[in-house]
């Protein structure tokens, strides 16, 4: 069966796999094998375990929609990260997300500072009114 994992940044994964285990905090776990009936479910925070021969991959998914039809499983997610183990994938994704949040906070402070500075300069030069 074919699995496609899509995020807003593009396709993350598109391969043939033997089996897929979908696990999420809201729905629990279930496995999808070849010739499964058409199924739709959602993942708020969870992971997808992909087995491809002897290889196993984990994809951590945030806010995803899973749809399986005609042996093609499509996962549309808002954020996803692929890793060799569940823990490392979760850790990496969390690291990326918290780094992003930190950066955003920093940017806010910088923008506030820049705006204050601009106001000061405008006042000093007496150029127009803000």
């Amino acid at each position, binding site marked *: 069966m074919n699995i496609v994992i899509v995020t807003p940044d593009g396709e993350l994964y598109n391969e043939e796999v033997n089996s897929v285990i979908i696990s999420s905090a*809201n*729905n629990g776990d279930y496995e999808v094998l070849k010739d499964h009936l058409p199924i739709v479910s959602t993942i708020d925070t969870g992971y997808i375990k992909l087995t491809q021969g002897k290889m196993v991959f984990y994809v951590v998914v945030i806010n995803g929609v899973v749809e399986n039809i005609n042996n093609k499983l499509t996962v549309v997610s808002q954020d996803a990260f692929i890793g060799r183990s569940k823990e490392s994938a979760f850790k990496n994704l969390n690291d990326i997300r918290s780094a992003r949040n930190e950066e955003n906070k920093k940017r806010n402070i910088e923008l506030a500072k820049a705006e204050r500075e601009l106001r000061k300069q405008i006042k000093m030069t007496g150029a127009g009114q803000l």
Partner: protein
Amino acid sequence: MASLREIKNRIVATKKTSQITRAMNMVSAAKLKRVERKHVAFTPIKSHIRRLLEDVLSSNPELSNPLLEKREVKKVGYILVTSDRGLAGPYNSNVIRYFDALVKEKYQSKEEYIVGTIGYKGYSYCKRKKLPLLNTESINSRDDVKFIDFQAMSRAFIELYLNNGVDKIVMIYAHYINSISQEIKEEILLPITDLVSDKTDLISDYIFEPSTEEVIDQLLPIFLENTLYGIILDAKTSEHAARMTAMKSATDNALEIIQKQNLVYNRARQAQITLELNDIIGGANAVK
């Protein structure tokens, strides 16, 4: 008339400004292309979720969800999409002016609406005007848009809606038409009314895991966030287009000023030479 050196300084300064604006123009053009591509790539994702949702709704017409039901509007939530930084021509002021006019026309007191802002410009405006704000700190509107940036706010708004804090959520943003024109648009985010729930061409009969109700409960917020994301991408495209146009005209204006100043400079130089010649001739005549 200003002295020669003053005019020269002015020409040099204007030249430097024009270099900066030209660079900004080119940066915006590149970013515009990138975000446009992202927007195009995102459209199939959005329609995929929409199709799924419509399928679920049409196969279960008896399903109801508070996010889908219209109710009497007592309080409205507005989401203003602006940029983090200025120098984008009328991009931010257009959105703000539109919102201002709307508030003046529709509401008497600040109790009747609440504002959520995306982008620092909108946030600082609302804070200055002391409007009722939902987000306590600015939601970044970065060039590399990510869901995580505005997830907290969108969830807060959905929760507020479900708790009857607001009865309608409207987004105000600059819709991208082409690189020279953008128009301010209002879009109703909640309640969701534009879904077709009586489709006849059902693609298949799905099994819903764990249940239809739960799938729809989770699918709706995801759908909303995707709509929001699509709108932000649209606004981002407009922002880059607006900045590109603004910087283009700034460069043109700077070049025009340089040309005029050059004329003034040459005239002043000529005058000075004439003056010096007069001095020399006068001096020589005196010696004779």
